[in-house]
Structures are given as C-alpha cells and as structure tokens.
C-alpha cells in the first residue's frame, strides 16, 4: 500500500485519539460566537502575517521554511493563548489553510491531511502537557514539535509519495532543523507579543 495513504489513515487515527481524550476529560470544545469570530479573524491575520514572506528572497526554498515558520508560529500561538482551549489550534490552522486555498493558491485536497496532522499533533501535545501555552517552556516544546512533525511529514511522506521527489537524509535533516528553529523562534516571539495583548484585553474596554 502506498505509504502516503497509510499516513492519511494514521492522521485519522490520531484525530480519533484526540477526540477520545477530549471526551474522557469531558472537554469537548464548544465555542461562543465571539470566540469563533476571533478565530476567524486570526485566520485572516495569519494569512497577512506570512504574506511578505511569500515573495522576494524567501522564495528560495532552501531557506524559506525558516523565514516562513517564524511569523506563522508567532501569530498562531498568540491566537491559542487568547483562546486556550482544545480545538482553537485546529480551527485556526485548518481555517487558514482553507482560506488560503480558496482565495489564492487554489483548492487542493492533497493539502488537507497535512493541516489536519499539524493540528492534531498540537492538540495532542496540549492535552498531554495539560497546558495551552501557559509557560514559555510549553510554547517552546510546542514549537519544537510543530517544526519536527510538519517538516518530517513533508519530506518523508508528502514529497516522496505525492510529488515523487526524493531528498537525501542530510538535506531532510537540515530542512527539519530550520523548521524547528523557525518554529521555536516564532513560539517565543508569539509569547512575547501576547503578553501586552492579553493584559490589554483583560483590563481594557474590549
């Protein structure tokens, strides 16, 4: 069987695990309208945050992953800190992916398992660590995990079995390291920027 299809099945299983854990903890997410709107706006903000990195220098794929990950992870993590619950990460990641596909890059079902995997991995991490980015350590761990899984998945499953492109192990290692580095920097940037925002929303007229 095609390993890619195997990976899709694996993702579905992962999702199942997440749901099961949520149900046993009686924490099935239900969002208020305001929270859904905030999440929706964050999908747009995520799109805007990575826009400048789609052109110019960062078009060179070799270093693109690094530059790309920083604003993406930063914005994503700010969003999660504002609504620290199960499902926020999934809605923002998948929502942004669909948004981006619908209005610019084109709708391609091949990308959907990828977003789901990125979401489920984070959700599982938060469930296991019992913390939704409450500490910087938690955030760095999340960033590390995100960079690791997303890039490894791309180079070990998407690339070889969808696009039939192969890369040497050392190259994969470099790219994954960049991805991890960028994601972790983004994570700390996000934590840093979220502090004034959260204190403003707590005390202000928002």
């Amino acid at each position, binding site marked *: 069987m095609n390993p890619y299809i195997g990976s899709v099945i694996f993702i579905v299983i992962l999702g199942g695990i997440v749901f099961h854990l949520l149900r046993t903890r009686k924490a099935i997410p239900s969002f208020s309208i305001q929270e859904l709107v905030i999440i929706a*706006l964050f999908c747009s903000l995520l799109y805007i945050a990575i826009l400048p990195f789609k052109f110019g220098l960062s*078009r060179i794929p070799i270093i693109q992953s690094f530059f790309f990950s920083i604003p993406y992870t930063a914005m994503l993590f700010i969003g999660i800190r504002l609504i620290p619950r199960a499902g926020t990460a999934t809605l923002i990641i998948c929502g942004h992916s669909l948004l981006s596909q619908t209005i610019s890059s084109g709708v*391609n079902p091949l990308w959907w398992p990828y977003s789901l995997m990125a979401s489920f991995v984070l959700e599982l991490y938060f469930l296991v660590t019992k913390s939704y980015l409450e500490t910087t350590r938690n955030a760095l761990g999340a960033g590390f995990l995100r960079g690791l899984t997303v890039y490894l998945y791309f180079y070990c499953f998407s690339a070889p079995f*969808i696009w039939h492109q192969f890369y*040497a192990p050392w190259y994969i290692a470099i790219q994954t390291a960049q991805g991890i580095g960028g994601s972790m920097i983004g994570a700390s940037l996000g934590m840093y920027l979220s502090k004034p925002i959260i204190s403003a929303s707590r005390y202000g007229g928002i």
Partner: protein
Amino acid sequence: MKYLDKETFLHRLDPRSKIILGFMGAILIVVLRAPIALSLLFLTVLAAFGYLRPARRTVWTMIILMATALCFTMISQGFFYALEPRTTILTILTPDSGMLGSITGGIALYQEGIIYGALQSLRLFSAMLLSGVIVMSTYPSDLLLGMGGLGVPERIGFVVTVSIRFLPTLMDEAGRILLAQKLRGLDVKGVRGGFRAFRYLLPPLIIDSLRNARRIALAAEVRAFTGKRTKVRELRFSLRDWAVLGFSAVGMIILILYQGGLS
C-alpha cells in the same frame, strides 16, 4: 489566482463536482507513473486552465511559478537521485572527502536525476493548474457551500466565511497602522526593519481585531445566529455534472489501468 466573473461551462458546474474533480486529480497525481499518463493529465488540466482564459498577469505568474518549480525540482532531484544506473555530470563532494563527505555520502549532479525531476514536475504543474481552475471558476462562498455539502463542519464554514469577508478590511487596517508607525518615526527598512514592523504592528492590529470581534459577535447575535441555517443557494447536481464526473471517472480508470494498476 482569483475568481473570474464569467459564465463558462466550468462555472456552471456544481461546486461539489469541482471539488470531487479535485479529488480525482489528486488521486491521479499521486498514483500515475508512466510519462505518457502524466503528460496526458497535465495537458487535460492545462486545457481547462486555458479554456477559462485567465488574465495575462495570472498566466505570467503561473509561468514564473512553474518555471521556478521546474528549475528547483530538476536541480534537487538531479542531486538526490539515488537509483542506478546514474551518470554523474558534476561532482561537488566525493564520499571520501572528510566528514562532510561521509555524512552526505557525496554530493553529485546526475543526468538521470535532472530528467526525473523534469518529469515529476508535471505532477506539481497539474496540481497547481487544477487548483487554479477550481478557484477561478467558483465563487468563494459557493466553494465553501460545496465543501459544506461534502461534509466539512458548519463551524469551519462560518469561520472561513468570516475570515474571507474580513481579509481585505484587515489588510487595509494593517497598511494604515504601518503608515502611522512610519510617521511616528519608526524605521521599517531592511530585514531588521521588517521584524521591527512586525513587532509593533501586531499588538494594535490584534487588539483592534478583538474589539471588532465583540461587535461582530453582537451583530451575529441580533441576527439570530446559532450555527445552523437554511441556505438560499441550493446545490443541485445537473446532467452536466453527472456527465463531467462520469467522463472523468472513466478517464481516470483508463489512465490507471494503462500503467498496470495502482502500485
């Protein structure tokens, strides 16, 4: 690639058909191997793309994107080709030249790799063109409706609808904030400037968005929003849709059988 406001055969298809076609295309992209099969797929999608007659700028962007993808794929696969037989054109590092050599196992450019890369690019091109065709021939809210019809949950549909609706508004606002910052003396040139802009741009943009979110939520409440709603736009499969889907399914099966089944 943006929606083209035209009336073409593709426009008149149900959005669900187009998404299903996207799935079929995805399956073919993953599964096909024979160069002829790949080329046929590419040409079919290219024809659909051309049929829509996109704007010159879109065509140009596509060409540039495909060209860069082609170059990168040829070069990367040229370097990473790992099957025999292979002929070396250029050697950058031999396997026995020190630590780097042993870690990497040598870096050399292989002729077969370049050809292989060119061939595999067809997959990438087909995917880009196909997804472009879907987006150019389907209005975004119809596309979301179609996805909803195929099983995407309502909440995600609402989230994406709102995010599409407010994207241009937010972009404008980001532009204004950036301008206001420049006028207060903030230096946003260069890479450091870029990061500085990011750092100062985000808090006001996000806080204002949070404030807006509250207003938007109130407006949704007074419009009785609960998540479920009847839809004015009805999705209905017509003969046209069945014909296209049937045709494509047959074509898909033929292509797969041609190369000896799914492997």
